């Protein structure tokens, strides 16, 4: 079934240029009414009200110049963790109630420069801590394929909105899989760029040595377009790399000849849902058919990744979230002295998962435990990084499942944090190693839930994984599917 509404960047640009049938205000008004209809069920946008579009249109030329910027007139959804000037940035937390950002994150400024319209605040797990989007102070996001299931996390709002056709594309963030896993759970495309490829300035930090901003889109080509606009050195982010940005769309084709793709044995072990394994194996066969050579490889330290990740990420988070004290911005509970006020403010306005992680991170850095936990984890991180360096000597990219399962039922894992953390096993490794990873739809379970294929590439080789993802996507039709709770199904 052909899509009736422009649900990709390419389609939106086409619709804009096909005058006189469409113009920007009418396209945006249509999108707004789709959001009005879908959002109550999915909860992918925080604080959504129709006025948003009017506000967005306020500063924008309703007749965009054709071909002016690669994203001219295209609305892009923004995860609630990214600062947009004069907008709230809740991070899906109550502790930032009342905060209005005085500045644009660098990625947002770059979107504007490309002509895009930052639109809406996409729901997420509070401070990006979670894998189901159930840790949002604004309520969970529901999966557009089955509302009893989660959208994944932490960029659940971004993935659900794009999958449901109520965001043309979105910016998410990925610290341990937060772009790739919800993209897989919702059946859309998610790219975690290499560490240092995209500026983090304006991204409210969860774990600074792991965080990256990346695109959540319907197609791989859209992901390439978005990455093209946001990548590159930023003088405001010391850790952004001063390395030329290649032409990502130029690399997209339909052949995989000459590429060697590795299958890490550890990612196909017991414990992976057989339906997930079956779909990923089929995708691997498709890549072979497209000309790629497939080899087996080993990443022996994979089994230590979750433990390593949760020590490092929570340690950094415990410091990053210390600034939320109710002195300069955000919510505050009064107290008899500053200490008392801090404790009450943070106890009242942080959610339970955030508290758990702050406590864990504080503990692993505390006197007497620092070396046994934090320092050891940093060393194991080196071993995990070296694993990848070795396999990327043997192959161009790796093919793996994104997650061991399809989207959980709502509430299924919320009471067991450890079980929840273990579900991140296939995604945290890329963040620890600083490499890039792409999630592409590769099928559905028998119950109709999407399954994702993960393509991992060496640092700064986004062009390679986009090329693989695109060729695979063109050879299959998973991306053309529309969920029952999305715009195509609901809007008349």
């Amino acid at each position, binding site marked *: 079934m052909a899509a009736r509404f422009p649900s990709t960047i390419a389609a939106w640009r086409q619709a804009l240029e096909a005058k006189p049938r469409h113009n920007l205000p009418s396209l945006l008004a249509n999108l707004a009414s789709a959001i009005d209809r879908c959002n109550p069920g999915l909860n992918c946008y925080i604080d959504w009200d129709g006025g948003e579009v009017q506000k967005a249109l306020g500063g924008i030329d309703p007749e965009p110049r054709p071909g002016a910027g690669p994203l001219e007139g295209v609305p892009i959804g923004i995860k609630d963790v990214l600062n947009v000037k004069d907008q709230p940035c809740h991070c899906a937390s109550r502790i930032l109630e009342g905060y209005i950002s005085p500045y644009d994150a660098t990625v947002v400024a770059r979107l504007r420069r490309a002509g895009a319209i930052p639109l809406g605040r996409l729901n997420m797990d509070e401070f990006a801590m979670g894998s189901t989007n159930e840790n949002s102070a604004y309520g969970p996001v529901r999966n557009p394929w089955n509302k009893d299931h989660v959208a994944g996390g932490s960029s659940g709002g971004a993935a659900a909105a794009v999958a449901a056709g109520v965001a043309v594309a979105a910016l998410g963030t990925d610290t341990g899989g937060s772009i790739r896993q919800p993209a897989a759970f919702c059946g859309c495309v998610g790219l975690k760029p290499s560490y240092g490829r995209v500026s983090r300035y304006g991204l409210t930090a969860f774990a600074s040595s792991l965080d990256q901003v990346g695109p959540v889109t319907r197609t791989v080509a859209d992901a390439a377009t978005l990455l093209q606009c946001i990548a590159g050195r930023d003088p405001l982010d010391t850790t952004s790399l001063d390395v030329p940005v290649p032409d990502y769309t130029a690399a997209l084709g339909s052949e995989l000849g000459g590429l060697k793709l590795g299958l890490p044995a550890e990612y196909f072990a017991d414990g992976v849902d057989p339906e997930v394994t079956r779909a990923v194996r089929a995708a691997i066969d498709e890549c072979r058919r497209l000309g790629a050579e497939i080899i087996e490889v080993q990443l022996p330290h994979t089994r230590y990744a979750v433990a390593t990740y949760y020590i490092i990420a929570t340690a950094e988070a415990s410091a990053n979230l210390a600034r939320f004290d109710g002195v300069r911005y955000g919510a505050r509970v009064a107290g008899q002295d500053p200490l008392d006020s801090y404790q009450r403010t*943070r106890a009242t306005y942080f959610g339970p998962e955030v508290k758990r992680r702050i406590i864990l991170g504080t503990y692993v850095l505390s006197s007497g435990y620092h070396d046994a936990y934090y320092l050891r984890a940093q060393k194991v*991180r080196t071993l995990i990084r070296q694993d990848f360096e070795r396999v990327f000597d043997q192959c161009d990219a790796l093919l793996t499942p994104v997650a061991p399962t399809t989207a959980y039922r709502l509430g299924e894992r919320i009471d067991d944090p450890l079980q929840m953390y273990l579900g991140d096993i296939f995604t945290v490794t890329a963040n620890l190693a600083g490499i890039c990873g792409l999630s592409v739809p590769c099928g559905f379970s028998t119950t109709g839930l999407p399954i994702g294929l993960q393509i991992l590439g060496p640092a700064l080789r986004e062009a390679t994984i986009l090329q693989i993802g695109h060729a695979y996507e063109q050879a299959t039709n998973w991306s053309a599917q529309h969920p029952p709770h999305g715009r195509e199904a609901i809007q008349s």
Partner: protein
Amino acid sequence: MDVRYVAHLARLSLTDEEAGLFQGQLQHVLDYVQELSPLNVADVEPTAHALPLQNVFRADEAAPGLPHEQVMANAPQARNGLFMVPRILE
């Protein structure tokens, strides 16, 4: 782990219920991360960063900050251009 002591370091007050719940959950996680213990990492350099970067500086050039009104608009409590907090005891 003394969950109350650690929470205090992080300036979080916990209800009895939370303390009990977190104590169990976090102990569970700490038991799990023990699986790193058998690894011999004596000769392994720690990774603080996955980046091969050093010496990234900014030139010493000044520019005006934010307008004062905008800064104070975000303040939960302000007076005379200052952010107000409960009296600090020394």
